[in-house]
């Protein structure tokens, strides 16, 4: 049975890791490599933007985020002059880049937003002067979370760069890969594109990952958008519909683990590609997996050891739902608590719909947007062997004495994801399995006893 608990519905109070709207802009635009971000606001928010921008770097590119130097006096008197000066330097290729960028995006923090800073006006002025396109996004932290910021930015992109299209449409646009909730998302999305290509599905655009600004003009050539988030994005969907590109809004399970990968790929291949190719590809991928693990006693040992253990999962709704299914279906691990984070009700609803069938064969509790406190207490009471979460909640669960594996959240920070291998897809099962083995070791190795029983030379002699 699946029990869904949502104390979040009773209150506006939250305690969860949800970066603000401007981070949605930074994550979207950092995948458009011939552009620059200018951040207008307070340094604490700027630091987060700088950190999360780096998610696009592995096998991707470096899009600078330049702060304008907003200080206390600017909060009082207005900081437009600093914004203008920074934009001009960037547009002239004198700051952060060596040549004028194709576009400059402006993000802002709460302080200039509440103060009513006219960032649109400044943008227009510098564009007129330098000829460089400058797009201002009203994306202060209080405007919403990272998903809302992504939506605001996608809308700007469609409004400013995408023309109506009457030609033939083929393939799909993959939308907002960084909202999947995987700490390995850069390598996961790259592999998902490989999977789709192998299944005859044309990936028209990944919005955004390793693009140039010119690439985004291809947007309306796709037959559909496949969002990699469960969040509702009505403004984006409406604009995209108007361009003739419908958006898949039902919750499609993400391809983590073999069962989920099969479901995800065949659904997309049957609709947008070549189902036969997809099936052949899955078989060939499975052959590759077998080359590593079949008849491998080491694998059999660990696969047997993992079976029947108890776990909890906590993360952004799409990834947390997929991992829950993976742990239960693929590894025979009983997931007792699932913490789902989502900015919109639709996000939680789609994830619970995906998890609902598990209720016939597994008893577990789903917490919708829990506080860390609720999550920690629920996990403690469930007496699980380990938790899969993000780096930010590692100290919480380790504080309860529960082993923790950080696979969720964003690529940054302290995730050791330097090997460009996916967690997604059939191929990714090898890495997922390896990661889960490590945390199960942490749960069951008797390391405290080793310390107590360690041999001490001379100890016990009279």
């Amino acid at each position, binding site marked *: 049975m699946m029990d869904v608990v949502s104390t979040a519905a009773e209150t506006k109070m939250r305690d969860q890791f949800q970066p603000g709207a401007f981070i949605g802009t930074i994550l979207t635009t950092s995948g458009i490599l011939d552009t620059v971000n200018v951040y207008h606001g307070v340094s604490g928010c700027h630091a987060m933007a700088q950190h999360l921008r780096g998610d696009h770097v592995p096998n991707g590119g470096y899009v600078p985020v330049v702060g304008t130097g907003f200080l206390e006096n600017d909060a009082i008197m207005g900081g437009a002059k600093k914004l203008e000066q920074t934009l001009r330097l960037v547009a002239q290729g004198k700051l952060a880049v060596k040549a004028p960028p194709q576009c400059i995006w402006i993000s802002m923090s709460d302080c200039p937003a*509440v*103060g009513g800073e006219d960032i649109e006006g400044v943008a227009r002025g510098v564009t007129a002067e330098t000829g460089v396109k400058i797009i201002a996004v009203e994306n202060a932290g209080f405007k919403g979370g990272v998903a809302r910021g992504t939506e605001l930015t996608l809308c700007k992109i469609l409004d400013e760069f995408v023309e109506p299209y009457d030609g033939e449409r083929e393939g799909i646009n993959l939308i907002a890969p960084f909202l999947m909730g995987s700490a390995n998302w850069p390598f996961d999305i790259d592999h998902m594109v490989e999977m789709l290509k192998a299944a005859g599905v044309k990936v028209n655009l990944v919005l955004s990952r390793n693009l140039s600004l010119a690439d985004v003009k291809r947007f309306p050539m796709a037959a559909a958008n496949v969002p990699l988030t469960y969040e509702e994005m009505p403004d984006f969907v409406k604009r995209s519909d108007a361009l003739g590109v419908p958006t898949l809004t039902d919750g499609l399970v993400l391809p983590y683990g073999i069962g989920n990968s099969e479901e995800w790929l065949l659904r997309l291949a049957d609709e947008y590609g070549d189902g036969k190719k997809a099936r052949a590809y899955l078989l060939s991928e499975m052959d590759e997996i077998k080359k590593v693990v079949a008849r491998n006693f080491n694998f059999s040992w660990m696969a047997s050891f993992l079976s029947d253990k108890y776990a909890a999962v906590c993360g952004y709704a799409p990834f947390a739902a997929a991992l829950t299914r993976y742990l239960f279906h693929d590894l025979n691990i009983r997931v007792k608590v699932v913490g789902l984070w989502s900015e919109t009700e639709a996000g939680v609803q789609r994830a619970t719909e995906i998890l609902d069938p598990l209720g016939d064969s597994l008893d577990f509790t789903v917490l919708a947007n829990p506080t860390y406190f609720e999550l920690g207490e629920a996990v403690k009471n469930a007496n699980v062997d380990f938790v899969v979460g993000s780096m930010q909640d590692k100290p919480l669960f380790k504080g309860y004495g529960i082993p923790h594996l950080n696979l969720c959240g964003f690529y940054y920070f*302290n995730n050791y994801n330097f090997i460009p291998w996916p967690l997604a897809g059939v191929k990714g099962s090898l890495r997922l399995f390896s990661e889960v083995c490590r945390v199960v070791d942490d749960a069951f190795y008797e390391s405290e006893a080793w310390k107590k029983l360690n041999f001490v030379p001379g100890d016990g002699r009279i």
Partner: protein
Amino acid sequence: MSKLEAQGYRWLPLKEAFDSLPEIDTAEFNELCPGYEGVWCRYLWTTTYFQQFFHDVVVVTHGPLSCTAAVKNFKQTHYSLHSALPFAHSPCTNMDENAVIMGGTDILADTLKRVDREYRPKLIIVTDTCASYMIHDDVDAVIANLGAEVEAKVVYTPSPGFAGVQCGKAVEAMGPLVAALMDPPKDIDQQGVNVLGVYYDTRFTEAEGRKHGGNTEAYAHLIEGLGLKVHRIMNAGGYDYLRTTPEARVNTIHTAMWGYPVARAMEEQFGTPWLKRQLPMGLQGTKDWVMELAIFMGREEEAERFTKAEEEKLLSLFEETKKLVEGKVLLVECSRNSQAKYGEMLAYARLGEELGMQPYVYSLHPMEFKSQIDDLIAVNEVEGMNPPVLIGPYPYHQPVNVEDVMADLGVNEDQCLYIYDDVFPYAKSGSFDPCNVPRYTTSSQMKRVKGSSFLGVGYAGTGATYRGIIESVKAARRKSKPTFYGRVWSSTPFEFQFAQRKERAST
């Protein structure tokens, strides 16, 4: 004219450099150093400074969820992971556009009641953010109206992110807020000594389960060496530990930037005297710190005996280190990203001077420099140090290149020792790498030495630093096989390229 000179940089003695700078956050300053904004903000400091150090205190953020994410994204998590601070529960009023327009006091009241009921902390601190502060939400009135519905003590600490330069004025402002949480002393422990200004670390010792602490042990060693008692090491512990801080006879200082504002406020509120020397590092630096305390407590004889005995233990190591580095230039890079926190780097400079090195301080952003008056007092007025500092534009936080600094000073790889703060040390295989230029990690973020203070203080910290310097100098003798990090940042990652590069440079 050197490259740095052409870019508008010049060396000035510390005090003269400070005096040469205009007032911060003025048009004149912004002209001199365009694009400065810092790395953190007052809200970030408040939520880490208060919440994480005191394990039974919950900080309620009145603002958007994004503000708590900005703290959790790196700082709170990093402090938990590497400095043994507890996980920070961070309930937040999740302020949205509607609340910005209509006000969010009802949500704040609801949040405070929930936190009191569910989390049951001893103390709740309400911090506001840029948005809630700017709309003038009346937090005090919300707290006053809670009445008996909330059992915990609730305190409001204004903390909008935009207020003050992040590493100077914003920290200064917190001193009175910390002192305001303390109770007037019932009794004064005549042997009790506090250490103020330890940030970034808990008071837990390695004996209590820390993997890499050593800082508390270092101060306990110095204080107990005089027959005195450690009363409180701040900020750390729980609410009761914090509120009874004024029961010590005297406050000593770890870092001026974090310690002086609290010490001043405690002096004003409770009459607690305080001593101004900071960062006991190096043989003389440690002795000076100990003697200042000894003189105040009337323990000079014990101090002479104690310091002599401790110095004797380190003397041969000191001599060995001095032999290797005497006459070298000490390249003191404050920080390539934030260009802040120069007090600790100047303490290493002082240690370097004791070893016969000549420190040169650079990548100290003029805004951070000017806004940290307490560090200047500690370093210059109290200790009399006045090393050369590189003053210049540092536009948009761009650090200067250490190879340009070396060229400017006319020194080669064998004539210097490079130390750095924070993350991102400079390295480029083929020209500047730990394999050919001695590089020692002085970053409090990165330095961890088992059984020693990672902040480098006390005799154990000094000994570890000497050993580290010796090892760095030895490592740089190999002149080949650069580090992975240096190769990644270089256009000449392989050694077969070095000869070609030198050839190109010579032609």
